[in-house]
């Protein structure tokens, strides 16, 4: 077991390995580690900010919701009022319409009564003449007695 030139060879190999590690291996790996550390820190900070944003948004949403509720109840009461008005109005209109219809119907009924009366009058006159003819047993000159008939029938 003696120290010999192997020592020198080993030292050269060692120096090369250290040089290579220092130049090409350590920096990229270490940098990527540092970069990831930074990324993670950034990500955590962003997450925290996001959390805060969410809280603020929730707060805002609550306010908006409250406003909307107030507005909608206002609208609802307004609509209620309006509906009542409309109902009242339509009730009035209906009443008026009904009255008008009733008046018209009455007028028509009166007219029809009148017409029926006229018809009856004419028919009664004819019947009376027929009856008179039968009773008298003689022909009555229609043309001669038309005046009398007309007078009677107009009295009916």
């Amino acid at each position, binding site marked *: *077991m*003696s*120290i*010999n*030139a*192997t*020592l*020198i*060879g*080993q*030292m050269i*190999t*060692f*120096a*090369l*390995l*250290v040089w*290579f*590690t*220092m130049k*090409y*291996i*350590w920096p*990229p*790996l*270490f*940098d*990527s*580690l540092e*970069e*990831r550390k*930074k*990324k993670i820190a950034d990500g955590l900070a962003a997450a925290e900010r996001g959390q805060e944003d969410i809280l603020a948004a929730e707060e805002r949403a609550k306010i908006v919701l409250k406003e909307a509720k107030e507005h909608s109840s206002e609208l609802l009461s307004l609509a209620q009022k309006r509906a009542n008005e409309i109902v009242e109005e339509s009730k009035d209109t209906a009443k008026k319409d009904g009255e008008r219809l009733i008046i018209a119907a009455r007028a028509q009924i009166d007219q029809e009564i009148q017409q029926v009366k006229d018809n009856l009058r004419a028919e009664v006159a004819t019947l009376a003449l027929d009856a008179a003819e039968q009773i008298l047993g003689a022909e009555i000159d229609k043309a001669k007695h038309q005046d009398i008939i007309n007078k009677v029938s107009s009295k009916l």
Partner: protein
Amino acid sequence: MATEAHAAEGATGYIIHHLTPLSVGSGFWTLHLDTLFFSALLGGLFIWFFKSAADKATAGVPGLVQNFVEMMIEFVDTQVKDSFHGTSKLIAPLALTIFCWVFLWNFMDLFPVDILPSIGSMMGLPYLRSVPSTDLNATFAMSISVFALIIFYSIKIKGPIGFAKELLFQPFGPWLMPFNLLLKLVEEIAKPISLALRLFGNLYAGELIFILIALLPSYLQPLLSFPWAIFHILIITLQAFIFMVLTVVYLSMAHEHH
């Protein structure tokens, strides 16, 4: 040693064979090919794995590989930040390299002791010692490099005069200058030696125990090598971790003024 191994038979021969490196050259200019090959291979594996993760690294959702690699990076970065308070572009990658490389070296210890040498002998290699951390050259190469960095940073941060003052005037003041220097030199030199020997000793002993277990009758082997392997998982990680943390601590001491 090689000839002895050939000569010795039985258990001793088996052990010596497993602990003999595949080497070329002679004297100081001997190269342990297996140590060089396996440590370079494992270093390449480490580089390939981490580079593939680094190329695909995104700050988005990480994949399985990236997750694992980032876990390692975070782990090393935490260790470095705990004990090192200066700013340096070198320390953290250095610590990562040391941890992963030493861990992979040590991990070779968990391969069954005979597999790689058998494959080696099929390929015509007489010896193959697959665990680089059982080679003093490998552990010392790393600890001496760390020591050089300690000296470099001490001089860079404190200036040559500041460093010299620290060596001469501490801990007992200027009147005991030679004694201070002696203490300080021992303290400094103990750092690389302890780093290298701790790692080497643990892994060499661990490997030796695996080899000894492999010498037992085959029905006893699983009974012993299984618990030892599980225990060794702890040891190899711990040794890699200790090497890394001590490196960071030594370098942070080099950065501090007294």
